[in-house]
């Protein structure tokens, strides 16, 4: 197409030079900074310091003979270069900004959890999935609510005020912000939220419905109840709900005081949770939209007059903790983030993260010794309610040990007979009850995929003095490249065995002595991947799917 031009023009040469330089730029810049590290100080925009979001980084692989020969070392070097080359952040931000401006969409749609809705409102995919598509039957939710009621009653018997708090989902409060592609998938069957509320009422559980509160205030609020670029509620929405929580504690006889007339500071400069999703998009330009900061008047109560508060819940509770802490009527507010994922306590407003994750919770000295307990469930998490179930299971087990005369039937355990084959596959007989599972996806015809790093199965077994033999069958969810790490199996939190499972259908047997199964209750936990070194998901595969696909489980008595 360009033959016959023997003398290229200056502009042509310049453009060609720029093309060639652009190809080589990441390598050249990285080498320059390696040899002249002081350059970066002069060019802070080239530092890869402010990309937002949690990523799983692999440890570098040593240049051993075996690693070099297997190509692992080359892979590791390439991965490290991809993660650290000079100017990476600048490129990522410019590319994301360009993609967003062109398509009004997040750059890596399928791999990202952030969806751009109407008028630029950002929503996390998880909330859209629940709002539009995911549906659960009321029968599936019933055991969960019964367990909540049992824990509530036991707490009240001990003088602990107990409130279930349902926090709202941005998708359900602002359905008008959801894009057409998601709206057309809307399932008309009732959402779990309305069924859950109905069950809570039937079981007389004290509940603060944050969804109803903020939905009612949506039109009158001075700022949007959910900020444009965030997934969590605004401090204003949180404050409205906090008032209802305090009223509920008052109703239960706790001397807490209402948060009246706080200072509400309006601004156009969103930060932290008000801009969590827009920050996660890692764009080049900052967004400005209205937000409100709520500053309650401190009550300045004496130390002895202050109460203690424990919250078991998710990320919405950081704002709640901060707000209630600012009222200075609680000695300490402990937030058990997704129960055991991390423990955060608020003193003087600011949170302090103690550990992540929490290995174990001493219920008698921690949550159940508080004056007030909030059990928070976001409406989008009602169908699964995983950490909540975990907490309820432990709390009920704890109460049962303390008060043996009052056995509490926890419906979260699957009753199983010896030799009975439990199936994880859809359309198969003897399917395992979803409430006996923690950390699993929905059943498919080929089995259930695990979700997260610690899927657990809760079993109620017949009485036996013999050793028990558990047989698990399944496959890896993702074909591992070479040898994936073994699945570590714990029985009632004690290391029991390791299952080396490749991609093909595998079977694993483990023997459990009866002494390890008190009350014939068995929690079978599988560490399917460690956060530090998970099996790498490739394009189109979610990190949550790194794990296995279980098909069958059998328990029998050992023959000898």
């Amino acid at each position, binding site marked *: 197409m360009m033959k016959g031009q023997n003398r290229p023009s200056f502009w042509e040469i310049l453009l060609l030079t720029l093309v060639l330089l652009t190809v080589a730029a990441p390598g050249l810049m990285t080498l320059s900074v390696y040899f002249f590290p002081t350059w970066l100080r002069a060019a802070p925009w080239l530092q890869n310091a402010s990309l937002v979001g949690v990523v799983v980084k692999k440890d570098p692989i040593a240049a051993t003979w075996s690693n070099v020969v297997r190509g692992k070392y080359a892979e590791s070097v390439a991965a490290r270069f991809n993660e650290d080359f000079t100017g990476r952040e600048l490129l990522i931000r*410019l590319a994301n900004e360009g993609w967003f401006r062109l398509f009004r969409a997040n750059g890596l749609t399928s791999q990202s959890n952030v969806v751009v809705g109407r008028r630029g409102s950002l929503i996390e995919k998880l909330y*859209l999935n629940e709002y539009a598509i995911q549906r659960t039957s009321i029968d599936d939710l019933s055991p969960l609510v019964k367990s909540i009621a049992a824990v509530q009653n036991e707490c009240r018997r001990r003088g602990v005020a107990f409130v279930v708090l349902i926090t709202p989902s941005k998708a359900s409060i602002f359905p008008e912000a959801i894009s057409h592609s998601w709206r057309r998938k809307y399932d008309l069957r009732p959402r779990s939220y309305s069924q859950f509320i109905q069950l809570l009422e039937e079981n007389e559980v004290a509940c603060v419905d944050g969804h109803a509160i903020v939905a009612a205030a949506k039109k009158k609020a001075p700022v949007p109840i959910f900020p444009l670029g965030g997934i969590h509620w605004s401090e204003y929405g949180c404050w409205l709900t906090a008032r209802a929580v305090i009223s509920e504690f008052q109703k239960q006889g706790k001397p807490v005081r209402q948060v009246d007339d706080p200072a509400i500071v309006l601004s156009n400069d969103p930060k932290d949770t008000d801009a969590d999703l827009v920050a996660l998009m890692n764009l080049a330009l900052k967004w400005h939209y209205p937000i409100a900061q709520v500053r309650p008047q401190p009550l300045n109560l004496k130390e002895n007059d202050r109460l203690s508060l424990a919250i078991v819940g998710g990320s919405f509770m950081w704002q709640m903790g901060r707000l209630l802490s600012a009222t200075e009527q609680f000695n300490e507010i402990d937030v058990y983030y997704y129960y055991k994922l991390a423990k955060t306590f608020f003193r003087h407003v600011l949170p302090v993260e103690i550990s992540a994750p929490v290995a174990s919770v001493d219920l008698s000295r921690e949550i159940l010794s508080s004056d007030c307990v909030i059990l928070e469930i976001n409406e989008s998490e009602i169908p699964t309610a995983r950490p909540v179930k975990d907490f309820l299971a432990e709390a009920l087990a704890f109460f049962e040990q303390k008060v043996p005369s009052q056995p509490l039937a926890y419906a979260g355990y699957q009753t199983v007979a010896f030799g009975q084959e439990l199936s994880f596959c859809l359309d198969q007989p003897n399917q395992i009850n979803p409430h006996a599972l923690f950390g699993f996806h929905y059943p498919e015809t080929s089995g259930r995929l695990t979700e997260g790093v610690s899927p657990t199965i809760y079993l109620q077994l017949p009485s036996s003095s013999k050793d028990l033999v558990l047989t698990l069958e399944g496959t890896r969810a993702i074909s591992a490249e070479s040898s994936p790490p073994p699945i570590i199996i714990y029985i009632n939190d004690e290391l029991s065995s390791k299952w080396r499972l490749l991609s093909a259908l595998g079977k694993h047997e483990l023997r459990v002595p009866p002494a390890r199964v008190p009350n014939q209750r068995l929690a079978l936990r599988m560490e399917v991947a460690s956060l530090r070194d998970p099996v790498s998901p490739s394009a189109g595969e979610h990190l949550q799917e790194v794990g296995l696909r279980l098909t069958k489980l059998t328990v029998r008595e050992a023959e000898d």
Partner: protein
Amino acid sequence: MRRSVLLFSSLIFYAWAEPVFIWVVLFSALMDYQLGRQISRWPARTWSRRLAVFAGVVSNLGLLMIIKYGAFLISNINVLGGTLGVPPLPAPSFLLPLGISFIVFEKITYLVDLERAVARPAPSFFDYLNYVFLFPKLLAGPIVKYHEIADQLRQPSHRYEDLRDGSIRFVQGLAKKVLLADPLALYADPAFNLSVPSLDPATAWLGLVAFTWQIYFDFSGYSDMAIGMARILGFRLRENFNHPYLATSLSDFWRRWHISLSSWIKEYLYIPLGGNRVSTPRSYANLCLCFLLSGLWHGASWNFVIWGCSHGVILMADRAFWLEWQKRLPRWVNTGLTFVLVMMTWVFFRCDTFSHALGFLRALGGAKPSEPNFLVMERDTLALLLIGALVVLLPLLRKRLPLLAAPLRPIPALSLALLLLLCSVGRVAAATFHPFLYFRF
């Protein structure tokens, strides 16, 4: 000196990814080179010459069979043996070396062309290695014949136009791969990973269209990059794609899709089997066999075999009656029908199992899902599907719109290339960063 640098960099390029297998290729190349010298010394049409070619072909195919098809073969033998109560054989587990299929086919081409006396042997082992390891085409072709490139290997061209046009072509390929194929895979992959009960017709169709674009832009993008990179280095490689989705029949499609492979199969398999000179049933059987093997070449799995066979069967129908019948239809109808047919056969190519493929086809036919799925097509994917369609239809648009008809002059072409390159590099960087808000396990 330049040729030494080229060979050295090609070897480093390959050794970096395949530090073990490179020795196997080097040894096998040495064997082929020696065989080639012998073949050219012996008189034409002698048994010794044919025997040497046979040995070379068998050793190369043997390498491919063991590494690429060993596990597939053993697993099938075990399935068969299982029904007869025979204990299973241990399955070999090799990581598939980079570009093995391309390397083996090129090495076979070299020996057969020497036997046919259409090529002269490489003057030195150095030249032969430069042919086998020429890095731009090493990963994904095109399959190059030695005699097509022998002169260039001796004296690569070093013109400014090569550097400029090669750079533009390379960027075109990169943009196809990074800006179209990879983002479309983000929809196509989950759509094909959905279980059949949760697959609704809309998702199945959109997933299939996304995959149809993805595979074309991915493969032709790689070919463009290879051709462009080779051009920068002073080599001219043959074209590998010629607007295949505008083909008017499946026969036409195979003249436009992966041209170097289809012509290889024709020249080195179909014609030696008798070509069109044999009886009609025999030529049909040969056609089917060629496409079955072409399917297997793409991967060691039954779905590729079925894909290849389906093409073989349609090509038989082409020959039997369709090519004659289709003359009565307008061109656009033939193009549309061929496109839909090709798309349908991609289902067998992309699905992991035959039952999955059948389930997918049922969903395409309107079967209602029994479970919900969470796959939603966002605006960017939809826009990319449309952009993909425009790129595919570009030759037709060029005929209709005079503005697009003339080739771009160097400065606009380079400006466009620079813009696409910046977008592609940014996109490559962004694709390595998949953050979560926080861990929520």
